[in-house]
């Protein structure tokens, strides 16, 4: 799992345990992973294999129970809440399966959110949001409320929101899961065309056809990587 390119992230023997009603549950069991910059990595596996938990740790939304996580060469396993929030705002873009757009905001306002948390001034925020919407082909619908948009359009707004902060790392959780085949294909095309240059995309999916577009596929079962394939 090594790569000659400079790694953007590295997991070292990462474990995640949670306390449940029947005792302690090990969700991730000593995961090792190195992802080079610019790579499109697909993580596959059946439900309950730990894909989303892995994505949460990679997205700095939760901390590993043990092991270390290096993002951009910096250990974040024991970072404070504020440091993690700043990392999420500046370095990570999220694309969720159910879009996660705020219904009372317009498309542009949704896209502006990460920039607001980075402290970008309003005028620049609006310009960059329009740029991002333009990149996903929705510039003309910038001021539309998102509930009035189709599923494919909403996911494109979500992608615009993920890329607007120019984060080096994009994390996508089943981004086509709520879309029909045609819209799903469009979104995949859009996502696979994004990691140009030094942008890295890690996508969680259990659809082999979606995973087939990635540079590298890793299969997770019962909290452990069991297979790896490079395209």
């Amino acid at each position: 799992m090594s790569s000659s390119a400079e790694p953007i992230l590295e997991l070292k023997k990462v474990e995640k345990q949670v306390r449940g009603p029947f005792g302690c549950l090990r969700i991730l069991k000593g995961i090792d992973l190195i992802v080079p910059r610019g790579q499109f990595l697909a993580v596959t596996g059946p439900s309950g294999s730990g894909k989303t938990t892995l994505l949460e740790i990679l997205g700095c939304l939760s901390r590993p129970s043990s092991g270390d996580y290096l993002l951009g060469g910096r250990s974040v396993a024991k970072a404070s809440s504020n440091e993690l929030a700043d990392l999420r705002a500046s370095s990570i873009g999220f694309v969720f399966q159910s879009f996660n757009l705020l219904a009372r905001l317009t498309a542009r306002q949704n896209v502006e959110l990460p920039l607001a948390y980075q402290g970008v001034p309003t005028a620049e925020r609006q310009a960059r949001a329009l740029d991002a919407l333009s990149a996903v082909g929705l510039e003309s619908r910038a001021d539309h409320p998102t509930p009035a948009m189709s599923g494919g359009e909403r996911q494109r707004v979500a992608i615009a929101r993920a890329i607007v902060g120019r984060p080096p790392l994009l994390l996508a959780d089943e981004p086509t899961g709520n879309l029909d085949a045609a819209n799903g294909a469009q979104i995949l095309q859009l996502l696979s065309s994004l990691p140009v240059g030094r942008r890295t995309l890690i996508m969680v999916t259990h659809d082999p056809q979606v995973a087939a577009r990635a540079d590298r596929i890793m299969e997770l079962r019962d909290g452990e990587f069991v297979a790896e394939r490079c395209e």
Partner: protein
Amino acid sequence: MIPTLADLKARGFPNPTWLVLSLVGLAVGTSVIVILLSWGEGLSIALEEGTNKTGKNLVLCFLGRISKDRAGPAGPRRIWLTREDVSFVRRRARGIELAVAESRAWKPVGAGPKSVTIDVRGVEAAIESIRDTRVVAGRGISELDVQRRAAVAVIGSVASNRLFGSASPLGERIEIDGRPFRVVGILEDPSGDLIRDRTLQSEQVWIPISTFFSIGPRYGSDIDIVDVLLFRVRSDRPYSEAVREVRRLLTSRLEVGEHDRDALQFVTALDVLRRLPIAAVPRFLALLGVVAVSISAIGVSSFMALSVHARRHEIALRKALGARELRLLTRFAAEGGGLTLFGGCLGLLLGLAVCNVIERLDTPEILPIPVVQSGVLMIAMGVVALSALLTAVVPAYHAVRVDPSAAFRSAS
């Protein structure tokens, strides 16, 4: 701009009707605090004015019995005052500016065929001055009346009504204890007289004290007994000092122990007023207002906590996108606290408006008018501020505790 129910619903507030009801409760509670505390202030002022009407700086001295533990082998004995004792106090006490003797008895008073029992007071000429009252028609009891034991009477409005109905009593003849008197004056009807000294002034008939003594012996004795010594404390002297001085003079003259409270009892108008629970009522009701505000604040706070719960997915998403905890804390604290401040300020305005309306109403003089003082507003604003703090902290605390990974969990 005031948000509508639809706006609140669109912003993710669950059950905005509940929020509006909580805010109404908050506003009503705050206004109740303002109204009742202001009413309490008005009541205090009315009481003070009533005290002044009863007689400014007035002290009443009643005599009783020497208490058992001070009586000695002869046993307890009754003691009394005479007009000479009153003159003695008048001459010797430096802390008082006026002293008047008064005797009183329930007497049968007749006018024509009517005969009723009335509180008849034997008074000196200075009675009007010391009781801070006046005669509204005719004249009062004069020094000459007292010297000549004149058969003249000054009558209160209620007593007059009982004897003469609506007809004027001036110049009419009445009989007290079967002895004829001529009505020479009508007493003022002080509606603010808050002390009922056995009867109200309007229910009394005043006659010269010397004539009172001549009507007949009382207590089985031929001594002219003065029932009450009224004296006015100099305005530059404290009540307690003047009372101590009069007590010392009288106990020495009457050979009574200086600390015998059974023998001499001093009552001031303020003492009487302080015994009345009426002044505590507005404070108690205002306390209920504080409780109402607190309960409403808890309502708003619970609502905000529920609102945070309903919006936890949005909060998780904002956190996932990089929102710092302090930012969320500020946002939700401002939302909860702002709503409470809004309700509280509405309540303040409502309270002030109600006070203003009551002030403009044509109310009887005896009914206290609310007096809004800065202290009242400070208390009300303090209660609102505390409530706002409560409603700010609780939702903010809940918002900060939302796990950002809920953004993924709800999505997957």
